[in-house]
């Protein structure tokens, strides 16, 4: 089988749920190959069906183990699942150790589960840009549920919103002070909070602490944030978790959060515009002789980068002027 599949072949394969096509498509997207955009544009109309769930939280909370249990139960209920597991790229070496699969070994030969490990490739915010598009591919391939597992570094939560419809924050008792461990932003974006390792003795306290914090924050939105105790080891709480996820899904489908979904679409558009505008302008400027001279001037401290940027931009002919 030749590796050089055409875009049409890949798209057809994706829409049929064919794993090879899914794998190759995600790779092209990750590598920003020229076919990537054509693939996305052809599958995009087929997206919007899946329930996309973002799972975040500090390292050590047991996200991957919990996901394995969650997915097994979803499979029992006849759902197909796609998982995108994101781990950090080393800023020094550019490499990454993607070890989330170790905790999900039982799922690797389940026909109804597709797992892709991704590195952040130094996208600040901790969530690989390609994750969003990989989720679209899995959506178009017919997966009912897509789980995006992110690095639990704290800043990635904002990125997760751009991808997921339901956000689950997984915590574990004893990871430092539970409340201090919830960095700013996590309280606001979590739709469901999970206290994992629920067999531990301070688990119940963690649950009630989080519940009181949520009450204090006085949320006005129509969704009542859920707090659930689970044990990925024993399976406790998994059914409750699924129920909460389904409830949230019903809530957002009702259109209650239509403005939020519109905001998502707008964010996607802005991100795409930023990328195209930036790339085309910089490519354009690079070709002009001024580029090297300008960087030399910055190096010599003759000019600061911001003024230099302004100068370069000012010199560009405006779109309305004759070309």
């Amino acid at each position, binding site marked *: *089988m030749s*590796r*050089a599949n055409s875009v049409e072949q890949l798209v057809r394969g994706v829409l049929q749920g064919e*794993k*090879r096509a*899914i*794998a*190759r498509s*995600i*790779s092209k997207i*990750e*590598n*920003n190959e020229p076919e990537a955009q054509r693939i996305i544009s052809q599958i995009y109309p087929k997206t919007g069906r899946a329930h996309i769930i973002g799972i975040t939280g500090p390292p050590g909370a047991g996200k991957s183990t919990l996901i394995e249990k969650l997915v097994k139960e979803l499979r029992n209920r006849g759902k197909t699942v796609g998982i995108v597991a994101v781990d950090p*790229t*080393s800023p020094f*070496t*550019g*490499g*990454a*150790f*993607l*070890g989330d*699969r*170790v*905790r999900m*070994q039982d799922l*690797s*030969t389940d026909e109804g589960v*597709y*797992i*892709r*490990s991704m*590195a952040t*490739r130094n996208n600040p915010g901790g969530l690989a840009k390609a994750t969003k598009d990989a989720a679209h591919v899995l959506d178009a391939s017919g997966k009912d549920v897509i789980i995006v597992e992110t690095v639990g570094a704290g800043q990635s939560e904002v990125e997760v919103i751009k991808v997921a419809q339901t956000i689950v924050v997984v915590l574990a008792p004893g990871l430092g002070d539970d409340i201090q461990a919830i960095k700013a932003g996590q309280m606001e974006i979590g739709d469901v909070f999970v206290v994992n390792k629920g067999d531990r003795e301070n688990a119940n306290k963690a649950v009630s602490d989080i519940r009181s914090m949520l009450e204090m924050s006085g949320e006005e939105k129509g969704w009542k944030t859920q707090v659930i105790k689970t044990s990925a080891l024993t399976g406790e709480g998994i059914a409750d978790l699924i129920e909460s996820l389904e409830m949230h899904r019903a809530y957002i489908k009702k259109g209650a959060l239509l403005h939020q979904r519109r905001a998502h679409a707008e964010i996607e558009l802005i991100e795409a515009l930023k990328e195209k505008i*930036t*790339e085309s302008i*910089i*490519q354009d400027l690079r070709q002009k002789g001024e580029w090297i001279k300008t960087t030399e001037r910055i190096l010599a401290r003759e000019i600061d980068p911001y003024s230099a940027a302004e100068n370069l931009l000012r010199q560009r002919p405006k779109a309305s002027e004759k070309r």
Partner: protein
Amino acid sequence: MSTKERKIRVLIAKPGLDSHDRGAKIVARALRDAGMEVIYTGLRQTPEQIVETALQEDVDVIGLSILSGAHNTLFPKTMNLLKKKGLTDVLVFAGGIIPQEDMPKLRKIGIKEVFGPGTPTSALVDFVKNNLPKTR
């Protein structure tokens, strides 16, 4: 602006029942430090699990680590499955405890190289970089 550079994706797998993963993890770290994205399967993988993972993760390279002596059964099974699934241009190497006299047989089924204990990690990194499948 740089286009995203192509990262080398490597699967480090432990087929069979031995639980000696120190070597596998050292190799995984070395390749990561050389800028590659390394997916580690964990212990006790069947050939089916390994090939399925390689397929979904669209890896360029597979490293099989085995110390139980079962390589003569597990490696051919794995290579056959890879072929069946169309993953014919993945670079496959092996490591662990594999006797010299078994190596020609393994090379014949498509295992490009076998690295014994004591192999410097730099040799591994160079091997991978120099033997990558051509751009797909």
